[in-house]
């Protein structure tokens, strides 16, 4: 077997993860300390955030991203990877972007969400819709990690249904110019802590203004006419989440950007990509924890790793994660190449997020009581996983969009009243008919 062993030597430990070219991207529990991103061409496998990983439980219990973690990530250059040099980024290639997304989400899903919403999603939106010169004053500190931003779309009324949004922007009276914003955004990542909000708002238009009905407002959150609140949440607890109330808060002239609503879809679908990587990473972390546990633990005299039922769960998870990661990385390739890939992102987000819940549930089962004990990584991942299903467009809503992309047409609503005409709300008779006879039909 010598020759075969020689060939197998390097492969056995990496196993199937090799398919993606990214292997065990971070050593959870390793030593602290940031590591700068390698240049393009360096092995993406080198990306890791050991300090962030070590502080993941702390983030969960305090409900905030630890300052050291924020700094570690900012110092690594993570926030710049996704942006072109002309906007202050480093324009990493697709492999590096994918590896970085997964690595940070492996280390701490909450930190990943908070920082990616700020640096990736908000950064992309400012880059796409803002002014390339004027808004460097926002982008520069954002990509340096000196400020954080919240992407503020959703309101209290209804998740992703924009027709219900009421927040609006109008011209400020008086000589100083600028605008006033009024309304409330709720269930927003980073809302309780951010410095800057990218707010979707309605434009109160002057007569003759035939511009878009909507705008993006870049709102400085450090002003008295903004108040904010926390919303405690089941998972991703280290990610600040909550609402912000604008009570005629001031927005600078240059920071209100009229945008047709449809145009925003492109920017928002970065959110689906971010969420999908969160899901892949949560699933991978849950799987790796399960592998570790299965190797260490015995039950009824049998090491868990030797039990076929446990193996079956691990194998199913492995296959699902591999399939999802391949699609996720393909989506990054598309995005980096400048193609929208929104169809791909929609179906990726649906599968990835539900897959992660399934994998995390298996991980809890494999861990038994450990998996439901607070403070255990798997207990946290189980709570985190479900958040991705709900976050950035609920998955069931996205399924409708996938179907529309497949040619099923736009959703058509009709009140549900067709069972009675079909006789299918009736109380059917017993073997001997009804207790009393049915009256004949007279038209």
């Amino acid at each position, binding site marked *: 077997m010598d020759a075969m062993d020689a060939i197998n030597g390097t492969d056995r430990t990496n196993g199937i993860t090799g398919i993606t070219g990214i292997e065990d991207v971070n050593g959870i529990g390793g030593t602290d300390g940031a590591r700068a991103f390698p240049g393009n061409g360096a092995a993406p496998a080198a990306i890791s955030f050991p300090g962030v990983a070590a502080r993941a439980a702390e983030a969960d219990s305090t409900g905030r991203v630890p300052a050291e973690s924020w700094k570690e990530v900012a110092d690594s250059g993570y926030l710049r990877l996704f942006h072109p040099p002309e906007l202050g980024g480093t324009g990493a290639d697709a492999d590096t972007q994918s590896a970085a997304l997964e690595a940070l989400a492996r280390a701490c899903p909450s930190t990943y969400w908070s920082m990616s919403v700020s640096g990736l999603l908000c950064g992309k939106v400012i880059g796409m819709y803002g002014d390339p010169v004027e808004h460097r004053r926002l982008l520069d500190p954002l990509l340096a990690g000196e400020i954080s931003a919240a992407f503020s779309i959703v309101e209290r009324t209804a998740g992703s249904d924009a027709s219900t949004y009421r927040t609006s922007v109008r011209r400020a009276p008086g000589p100083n110019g600028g605008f006033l914003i009024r309304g409330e955004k709720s269930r927003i990542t980073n809302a309780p802590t951010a410095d800057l909000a990218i707010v979707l708002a309605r434009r109160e238009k002057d007569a003759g203004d035939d511009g878009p009905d909507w705008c993006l407002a870049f709102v400085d959150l450090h002003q008295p006419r903004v108040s904010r609140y926390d919303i405690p949440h089941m998972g991703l607890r280290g990610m600040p989440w909550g609402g912000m109330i604008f009570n005629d808060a001031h927005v600078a002239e240059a920071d209100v950007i009229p945008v047709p609503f449809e145009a925003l879809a492109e920017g928002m679908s970065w959110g689906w990509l971010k969420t999908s990587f969160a899901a892949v990473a949560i699933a991978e972390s849950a799987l790796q924890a399960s592998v570790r546990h299965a190797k260490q633990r015995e039950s009824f005299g049998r090491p868990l790793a030797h039990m076929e*039922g446990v193996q079956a769960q691990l194998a199913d998870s492995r296959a699902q994660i591999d399939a999802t990661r391949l699609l996720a990385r393909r989506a990054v390739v598309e995005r980096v190449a400048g193609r929208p890939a929104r169809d791909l992102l929609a179906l990726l987000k649906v599968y990835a997020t539900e897959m992660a819940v399934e994998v995390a549930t298996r991980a809890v089962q494999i861990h038994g009581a450990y998996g439901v004990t607070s403070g255990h990584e798997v207990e946290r991942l189980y709570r985190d996983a479900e958040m991705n299903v709900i976050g950035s467009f609920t998955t069931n809503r996205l399924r409708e969009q996938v179907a529309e992309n497949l040619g099923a047409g736009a959703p058509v609503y009709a009140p549900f009243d067709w069972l009675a005409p079909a006789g*299918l*709300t009736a109380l059917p*008779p017993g073997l001997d008919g009804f207790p009393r006879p049915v009256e004949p*039909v007279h038209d």
Partner: protein
Amino acid sequence: MSHVLSGAVRDDGLTEDHGPTDVTPGAASASAPGPEVWGHRIGSGLVRPTVAGRDRAGRWDPALFAALAGAGGEGAPGAGLAGLLVPRDLGGGGLSAAQAAAVLEGLGEGARDPGLALAVGAHAVLATVPLRAFGTPWQREHYLPAMADGTWTGAVSLRQTQGGARPLTVTAAPAGAGGWTLDGTVDLVPGAPVAHHLLILARHEDGHGVSAFVVDAGTPGLRIVPGGPAAMPTSSWGTAVLDSCAVPDNAVVGTPGAAGRETGPLLAALDWVFTTAPWVGVMRALTRDCAEHIRRTELFGRPLAHSQSARQTLADLAIRSELSSGLVRGAASRFDLAGRSSLADAAAVRLFAAQALRTVLDGASRLAGVDDLGDDRLIERAHRDALFFSAVGGGAEVLRPVVAASLLELG
């Protein structure tokens, strides 16, 4: 090994303890053998020996059906399988609905022949109960005694067991001199080529109302074209073509125009519950086959029964069988009480059991591998037939709204 897990009845037809398979779920009784034992014995004795050959040949066996119709033996009611639900005073077995479901479950397990079990259920339940529930005294006395002993068989299209979810394909127009003229085509009729009469739902040509008709096979204008789906080839299948088919007024079953509230929902509910019952028996049979299979099959040089994964799969089969059985029995028992049955209950039964059957077949085929179980290729046959089963009665796209509407108080 308790029979709860191993199926209601041993393969040899011997009875075990019958508490949990008693016809009233939840009621304990450890006395006489339950009706499922009788059904199982008939199935394993008469049907199973020839199922593989009949299935391969796609052959309907009239002699076998006649034998089932008149089957007796220990535990038999006054009549055979054909007359399960015909009252005793009309020559039937006079079983309760719950007992009939138990018989069908036992039959499914013993016979391992979903097609023939469907043929039995279509005649003894779908074609029989509407006549019993809504038939005129003349209709009851004319049809039911001959149906009870199997002299006449009745047939119903499985397109007409979903209420009005999809448009009815047969129309009825009043004839000038009384009576009705029926036109249209309805396929997927198990037993049509051998039926004495068909129960047909037709919408009134004027758009107002739906009526049920019992149409004798010899009626001019009614033509039966043999043939049907690839599934359940041990049933006989046919399409009924009605071309200006004139029927008398006394062919109307129930209130004229009101079949949308009488026979229509009744057929749906009966289909959802009673054609499910034999499948519960099939699930039990598959479970037991798998338990046997993993003991005698080796993988990686050791018995498959040593594999934790195989054992867990086996457990999941048993669980699905047991849950489905309870649901079917519970819903069936409510037909015994006028005004207590519910379409939502019945729809939930089918919805659950169809999903359970998929799980059982997936698991069984995973355990069996490329070879089937037993000598009669039950997995392959059941896999094929289950595809059809899960689609008739409207399928999940009809069942789910029916269940949900009840919860949501919508309709």
